């Protein structure tokens, strides 16, 4: 079971909302599918993202995947630790492996995302 306090996308990103702050990362399932994460390319602080816009790239040894914003908003912080420790995305995907914090533009966008049960069902279906 994935953490129940998060919202999920079909592209395997998660978002945690705290007031108007939305923290975004990728799920343990996604990290495992990609393999050893070696590099995370993140946007500049201040950039404004639409919901589902590509905001970065995650690279493993032999694969690459775009990252999509589960919700829209302005980037207020990125996880600088991932520059030196991209492995956190594998080892601690829901906490230390977070990627960006957004100023949530529209809380209603959360309604269109998956909850933990629905996301579990998605990955169980393969």
């Amino acid at each position, binding site marked *: 079971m994935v953490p129940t306090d998060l919202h999920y996308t079909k592209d395997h990103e998660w978002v945690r909302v705290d007031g108007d702050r939305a923290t975004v990362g990728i799920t343990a399932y996604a990290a495992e599918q990609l393999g050893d994460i070696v*590099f995370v*390319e993140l946007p500049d602080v201040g950039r404004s993202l639409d919901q589902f816009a590509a905001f970065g790239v995650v*690279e*493993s*040894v032999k694969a*690459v995947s775009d990252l999509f914003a589960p919700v829209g908003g302005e980037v207020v912080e990125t996880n600088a630790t991932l520059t030196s420790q991209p492995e956190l995305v594998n080892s601690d995907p829901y906490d230390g492996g977070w990627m960006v914090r957004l100023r949530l533009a529209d809380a209603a966008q959360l309604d269109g995302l998956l909850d933990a049960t629905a996301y579990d069902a998605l990955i169980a279906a393969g």
Partner: protein
Amino acid sequence: MPYGPHTAADRARMLGALGLSSVDQLFDDIPPALRASRLDLPDPEPELELAARLSALAARNRTDLASFLGAGVYRHWSPPAVDQILLRGEWYTAYTPYQPEISQGTLQSIYEYESLLAELVDLDVVSASHYDGAAATAEAALMTCRQTRRERVLVSRGVHPHYRETLRTYFSGGLQLDEIPLVADGEAAGTTDLVALDRMLAEADPPVAGIIAAQPDFLGLLEPMPAIGALAHAAGALFVSVIEPVGLSVLAPPGAYGADIAAGEGQPLGIAPQYGGPYLGILATTDALVRQIPGRLVGLTTDLDGQRAFVMTMRAREQDIRRDKAASNICTNQALLALAASVYLATIGPHGLRDVAALGAARASELESALAAVGAPRIHSGPYLNEFAVRVPDARRTHARLLDRGILAGLVLADVEPDDSSLADGLLVCATEVTTAQEIERFADALAEILGGRPPTGVEAGAGSDRSTLAGSAR
């Protein structure tokens, strides 16, 4: 087929296993309307006859000339060890080291190449090789655009004309390329015009991603690289230095004057001229730009037992994984030539490399004096390393007449820079450590004769036989 193993019995056995009577059946999926017309090529040629044909073709080339031609490709002594090592099948018949466990030779050799070249250019990261100096320079220009997210690059007209033409082709997909003029006269003539560059940078729209200049420049002159780099950085642009690797043993390296990227032609490092390639595109940059450098990279790591070993790394930047978002489409590179450069550097050594550069400079000084004495003075007055332009009347015809006398008198500059009137009577000539005093005398003597029978000066007795041969052939 000359190199295949299959006997009639082998083929019959394989067809039998497939339940077929003819190999034609394996091509049934080619629609009949689209099948090839007869292949109209000559019959197979046995090796003995083919060898004779190849020898005859090679003999039609004139490589017996006393050559003063450089212009980006230089004759150097390549110790026989270089080519003999390259001829080992384990090097030249392997491919890209996709399986590191059985490719440690290639992988370590590339890592060593990266390290050796990093020492020469004094930068952090060197790619495993690009096609040639021109393609490496084009990739460097594209790097500056990706890094700065700008779309305009300025290239000095002192950069090799083929490189500038290649840049134009690579930029035709939608990027802007402008040329920085050279200083027309005075002490700095023939080098990048800093005043013009400053003016071009002041036009902020569109902003400049990168500035490219060569050291030495195409005309052999030494450029004010620190000043060009400072102007680039003040404008928020990156600075690309086009280098010549042998000269780097004595000239300040790109890392010392703040270049962000170095690109250049590695041919002088032990690689034969062979009419254009295969050569070695050198591309190097700083740690800050490592994500932008295209092409393969080999890094040091360990295996499961903790043994030190080497592996291709940061592969997810490359076309086979990132596809349309890759930094470049490069796949095949010039690994064997990178090996040649490494073996050359290891064999010749740091002191030897300096001697190569210094002896070339010394021979070039002798060449300058000898040509000036017979009426072919330098066009420019600034310092040079081992290549310079001289003015001779009717340069193209003079060049052809010298060729008749067995002398390849450098490059007719009007052939490659037809629009530059200051070079209309110019020949670009160079000397290297393989240039002999006798060759210089022959050149000067022949030129003197062509330019009006002025008696050659300073010819020692030892050159007498050369002179009589020349006189004989001139009649």
